[in-house]
């Protein structure tokens, strides 16, 4: 019996010592980018999503489809080494991640201190690495087997952003926090609401670190591949970093906010005449050729249309009859999505619409999956067979 107990203690000791996530090895470096850089997307629609595990081949072949991609491997070895040296000096390694703050005013609100980044790096390795990859390229071991592909942070662009601005604007920390805490419905991005607030913030800081590093590398490589003059790689890198830091800061300052927000009581009145009238107006806007939501969401999204996204992959405009909204399902989420667009997917920002018109669209989109929430004339157009 004593012998058995000793064996048990031995096994348990071994188990507890061996279990758990280990931090990155200190000697591990971020690998240089080798996958193709998209300069121009094909003008035509894609035939379908890339085959599983073939995303790099798919992007590499965009030239043959009328797009333009550049290959970082075409650069001379000494140029690549120079870029890599600068990146290591500026951003450290996975075990010791850094971001030089470059005296950008207010940058401390991005929480990019070395200790926060180190904690975030450990958590990222535990929870995110397998999909998003070591450099945040969305090409982790799991990434190739799931669709939609995990987000590639390296161009500094994101889909679900509530800050106003161009299609390539940065998300706020709150935007990243929302995706992290709640996950992204009907994708492989799980919710991390069970992590503590501090842990989520640490992961967000590390994600920003990866995005900054990736964006600086992306811009340097793009310049070098386009054979633009570059006197000093380090100076250029700092310039790109300064610009990106300012964009991240700006994203935290302003959000797309409607002047009026429907209260829950308004939403409870979804079958009242005034609400039904709003849905009817929303339907008219949706099908209006000048606004042309229906041009991408063909047959309200039921017909698959595959479009190239900014990363060179493929996106499918949402089937709005299913009631699944990846960027959030509240009326305000949808308002911000319509008003701000989903830049990397090619969904334009509806900046010409008034607040009331945008709410009409929101009401229509929210009513779409539930046939009894649609006015009868609209229902007969959306669901002619019923």
């Amino acid at each position, binding site marked *: 019996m004593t012998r058995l107990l000793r064996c048990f203690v031995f096994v348990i000791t071994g188990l507890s010592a*061996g279990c758990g996530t280990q931090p990155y090895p200190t000697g591990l470096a971020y690998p240089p980018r080798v996958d193709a850089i998209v300069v121009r997307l094909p003008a035509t629609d894609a035939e379908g999503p890339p085959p599983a595990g073939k995303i790099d081949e798919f992007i590499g072949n965009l030239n043959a489809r009328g797009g333009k991609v550049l290959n970082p491997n075409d650069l001379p070895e000494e140029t690549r080494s120079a870029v890599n040296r600068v990146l290591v000096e500026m951003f450290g390694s996975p075990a010791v991640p850094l971001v030089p703050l470059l005296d950008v005013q207010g940058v401390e609100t991005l929480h990019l201190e070395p200790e926060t980044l180190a904690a975030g790096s450990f958590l990222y390795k535990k929870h995110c690495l397998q999909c998003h990859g070591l450099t945040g390229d969305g090409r982790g071991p799991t990434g190739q087997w799931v669709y939609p592909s995990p987000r590639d942070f390296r161009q500094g662009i994101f889909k679900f952003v509530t800050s106003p601005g161009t299609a390539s604007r940065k998300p706020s920390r709150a935007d990243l926090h929302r995706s992290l805490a709640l996950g992204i419905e009907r994708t492989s991005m799980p919710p991390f609401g069970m992590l503590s607030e501090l842990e989520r913030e640490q992961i967000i800081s590390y994600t920003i670190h990866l995005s900054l590093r990736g964006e600086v590398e992306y811009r340097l490589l793009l310049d070098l591949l386009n054979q633009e003059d570059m006197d000093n790689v380090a100076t250029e890198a700092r310039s790109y970093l300064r610009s990106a830091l300012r964009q991240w800061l700006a994203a935290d300052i302003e959000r797309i906010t409607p002047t009026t927000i429907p209260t829950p009581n308004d939403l409870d009145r979804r079958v009242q005449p005034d609400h039904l009238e709003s849905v009817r107006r929303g339907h008219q806007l949706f099908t209006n050729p000048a606004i042309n939501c229906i041009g991408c969401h063909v047959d309200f999204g039921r017909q698959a249309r595959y479009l190239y996204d900014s990363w060179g992959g493929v996106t499918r405009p949402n089937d709005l009859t299913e009631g699944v909204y990846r960027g959030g399902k509240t009326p305000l989420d949808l308002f911000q999505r319509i008003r701000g667009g989903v830049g990397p997917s090619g969904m334009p920002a509806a900046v010409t619409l008034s607040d009331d018109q945008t709410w009409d669209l929101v009401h229509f989109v929210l009513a779409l999956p539930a046939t009894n929430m649609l006015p009868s004339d609209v229902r007969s157009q959306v669901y002619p067979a019923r």
Partner: protein
Amino acid sequence: MAGKRLTPRWVHVWAILTCIATAFLLTLGGLVTTFRVGMADPVWPTEPWFLLVTSWSEPRPGFLIEHAHRLAGFTVGGMMAVLAIGIWWTEPRSSVRRAGTLGLIVLLASFGQFHRAMMAQANTIEIVWPFGAIGVMVVSLIMVAGCAASGILAGHRGSGLRALGVIALVAVMIQGLLGGFRVRLNAWAGTDLAAVHGIFAQVVFSMLVGLAVLTTAPRETYKVHEYRGRLPLVLTALVFVQLIWGALVRHHPSALVQRFHLMFAFAVVATAVPLIGSRRGFGVCLLAVFLVLQVMLGVEAWMGKFASGVLPELQRVSKGQAIVRTGHVLIGTGILATSVALVLASRRQPGSAQPGDA
């Protein structure tokens, strides 16, 4: 020469079919870990028929592998429920038989209710535990356990087998929950629960193999000098610990765990070789074949994982590597199952012995 069976023949056939289905389930589980697609669908629970109603138009192999694993899990759960009830129905005391059967049915129904309650909150962060269903599960389990224990205490023939049937059913239910909560509690536990799920799978499969062995007709006599001995038992213990290290190598390949896995591989071979050399029979031959295959697959898997110079967590798994790694897991399970079968065969009483030979 065969003695009187403890159960009807169909129960034995069903036990074998359940083992085969479980081996398929383990293969899919191995693929899930190999391709690291345990979180391909972060929603749990889903309906058993989910794969039939979801879109197959987009390239989501990870999603399909993971959901095929869930579907196989549902199938094995259903087969195990039939097996447990079939074994229990051999209870000779009619009142205990009825009470135990009722307990098993209530246990299964309340487990289904638990599943439904979890499904209703599949998209929420916080979990509201369905204490009503849990309470009914516990009460019905106590009732069945009491019935099983009374048979063992009274020394009734086959009481041990019936108890093992109940334990295996509960183990399958626990295994299903471990798999589900590995998804549901991912943010909290990471892949730790996945490792526990992988290890417990070996325990469950061993129990099912045990049921398949014990539902065979016992032989009239045994050559005691051939089958007695501690070697099969020691081998089983070593193989089980080795499988723990193996699961940890797959989920948390720390330097310490890697060393333990290598050392125990030597220990298992060193224990198995004398056993194989000293005995004859189908089980021992199967063990020898499994062992040779396992060493070869283990070397290949090890080279692929640790000799490539890439951190294991960063490696993209090729189809060839997936076959080798999953095969290594499956053969490991086969070795454990064979060891368990040898232990049971060596410990089993002759069929003529009466009563309480289970």
